């Protein structure tokens, strides 16, 4: 018989950034929880409306529309975030690139597009014009300029991690020290521990044949992000993967997933995307640049068989 828990859980969820957002904590005052919940929702709305490239009133939309024709003065937060993305572009050997977003757009709307067509969509010429290094930043004016008209910014690859870090700060501001915070269960950050253990145990399932957990990561004040291909991706996006390789100009469609555990939710998200498309050399160089707790790749051979490689755990240089 299971023991009934006397622990009061405080939990809410909402829709944000195209997926489901979940927040769970426990053992705090109900009034405090309501206050924090309200602040988190406001913060999610603020971040989404500011950084969505699709929202006509967003800052990113404004930059994308103006930054080739003129220098765009932006606010400090936006400027710093774009600069951070440029740093990650360099630290991941150009694998994490906020300028490739448009490349993923066209196939979203066409089930008829084949892998071959996807591969052919971006020309080598276009690829040579992309890259976060071609976003020119002027710190003295917090200004952004694009080096060519093919550039546009898509913060989708970092937005959830960024929001998770912001929410973590809200929690700490209110002395909430234990929490499980999730975007669509693919980007998760944690504070403290599960009420019945000394960490939050995150179980990874077989992506094509869900059942028992195939690997468990221990999170305590740390984050996990996963990038992967699965049946659902194929159904959703056509018979291909959904992560675009900025160097080859193709979509990665290998049946695999990459999960990264590290302290920062932002870096977990950046790395799960970068490592998913990295070759061996790129992976080693990239991991050398970061401090990660775990970097797991699950390769799926079939609906039943899989292998797990833990690239882990080089400490930050």
């Amino acid at each position, binding site marked *: 018989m299971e023991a009934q828990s006397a622990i009061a859980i405080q*939990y809410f969820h909402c829709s944000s950034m195209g997926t489901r957002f979940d927040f769970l904590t426990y053992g705090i005052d109900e009034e405090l929880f309501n206050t924090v919940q309200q602040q988190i929702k406001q913060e999610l709305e603020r971040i989404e409306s500011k950084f969505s490239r699709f929202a006509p009133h967003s800052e990113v939309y404004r930059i994308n529309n103006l930054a080739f024709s003129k220098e765009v003065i932006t606010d400090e937060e936006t400027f710093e975030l774009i600069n951070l993305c440029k740093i990650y572009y360099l630290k991941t050997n150009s694998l994490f690139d906020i300028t490739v977003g448009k490349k993923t757009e066209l196939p979203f709307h066409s089930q008829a597009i084949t892998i071959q067509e996807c591969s052919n969509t971006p020309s080598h010429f276009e690829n040579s014009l992309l890259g976060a290094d071609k976003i020119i930043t002027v710190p003295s004016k917090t200004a952004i300029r694009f080096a060519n008209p093919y550039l546009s910014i898509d913060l989708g690859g970092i937005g959830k991690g960024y929001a998770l870090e912001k929410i973590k700060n809200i929690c700490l501001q209110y002395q909430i020290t234990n929490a499980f915070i999730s975007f669509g269960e693919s980007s998760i950050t944690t504070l403290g521990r599960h009420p019945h253990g000394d960490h939050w145990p995150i179980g990874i399932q077989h992506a094509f044949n869900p059942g028992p957990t195939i690997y468990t990561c221990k999170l305590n004040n740390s984050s996990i992000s996963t*990038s992967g291909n699965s049946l659902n991706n194929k159904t*959703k996006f056509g018979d291909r993967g959904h992560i675009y390789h900025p160097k080859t100009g193709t979509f990665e469609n290998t049946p695999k997933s990459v999960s990264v555990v590290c302290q920062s939710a932002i870096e977990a998200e950046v790395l799960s995307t970068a490592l998913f498309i990295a070759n061996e050399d790129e992976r080693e160089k990239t991991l050398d640049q970061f401090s990660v707790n775990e970097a797991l790749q699950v390769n799926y051979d079939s609906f039943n068989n899989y292998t797990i490689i833990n690239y882990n755990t080089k400490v930050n240089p």
Partner: protein
Amino acid sequence: MQDQDNSRRDFIKAAGVGGLGLVALSSPWLKVFGDNKANSKAASDKVRIGMIGVGSRGSYHLNYLKQMEQTDNIEVIGVCDNYQPHLNDAINITKGTAKGYLDYRKLLEVKDLDGVVIATPLHMHAQITIDALKAGKHVFCEKAMAKTIEECKLMVDTAREKGKILQIGHQRLFKPTYIKAIEYIRSGKLGKVTQIRAYWHRNNDWRRPLPSPELERQINWRLYREYSCGLMTELASHHIQVANWVLGKTPVSVMGTGSINYWKDGREVEDNIAVIYSYADGTQFVYDSMTSNKFYGLEQQILGDKGTMELETNKMYSENPPQPAGILQLVNDIEHGIFDSITVAGASWVPETAAKNKGEMICLDDKIDEGKLQLIGLVNAIRQNKPVPQLMEQGYYSGLWTLLGQQAIDEKRIITLPKEYII
């Protein structure tokens, strides 16, 4: 509290604009939130309410009504109780803004009074309700509806004759979990529902403290057949109402038994009962209640060939369960003292096809206080000055079948509904 208010506003807005889909068919009384007139804040549309019976349940309503004075364009202008200490407490709750009455008939004489909320002992429900309706007042009466089926019918007939609202206080009719559950059931999520089970178990003597011994029958009226039918009217009536709502029909017969096997303290009502209601299609509603063990507590289980719902605890279980979202599994684990991995497949993209059945929540946002919401519904309806669709009928048939269940226990035979009581 603020979160509750936000949830309530969202809920009312959704109900009002007809955004509830199937719910509009299965819970038509929610339409009461949708009318502009119903939500009017104009001084001329202020609703003036009187409270009759301000003991424990009555003061619960009174506190809500006082909150609603700030938000819902109402005013509590009178409070009434024949027990002076309760009346004093009620006047204090209103900070002296409401006038106190020892005789409800004096309160009914107040010309500006639009409606009354009745929370007296059961045996008084019918007379006060009928007097209020005849005085031209709308009525919210606590459940169970009345002490006899004759009284129930007379209350309905009077309300119809006078064209006034008669709402019985079954607050689950306004509870999001139940509304969502009924929507799911109507959409076929549980498949064919063939049995409903419910129980309400307590382990106490159900007595209130007495200021002095001669007040025993007045204070502990629930224990005496002159005033109450005990477990059936005070507890079972809630679950009978829900069973009828779930199935969208009323029973055709009831059998039952009960006894006093533990609290042999002079009480006249059973301390344990068991009843089975049968519906025309063979569906059974099995209910029991006791007061000498509380391990299983309170629950209502809806059993279908595709799944099960436990309404009181907001849980739903599929016969062929999908993998619960990791977060729901986590909530469930914590509640049950389990330290287990939070299963993610790496993304929100995992096919939901697997294995263990720990259930899922029926309604994720259940913070709305249905006790208050039913009163908001009442004042909205009063402002519209027209009965709320099917709300009185829900209370009537619940009250009726509660009393027929008691009759089955008393007479030890299967009871059916006399045709003249069909409305």
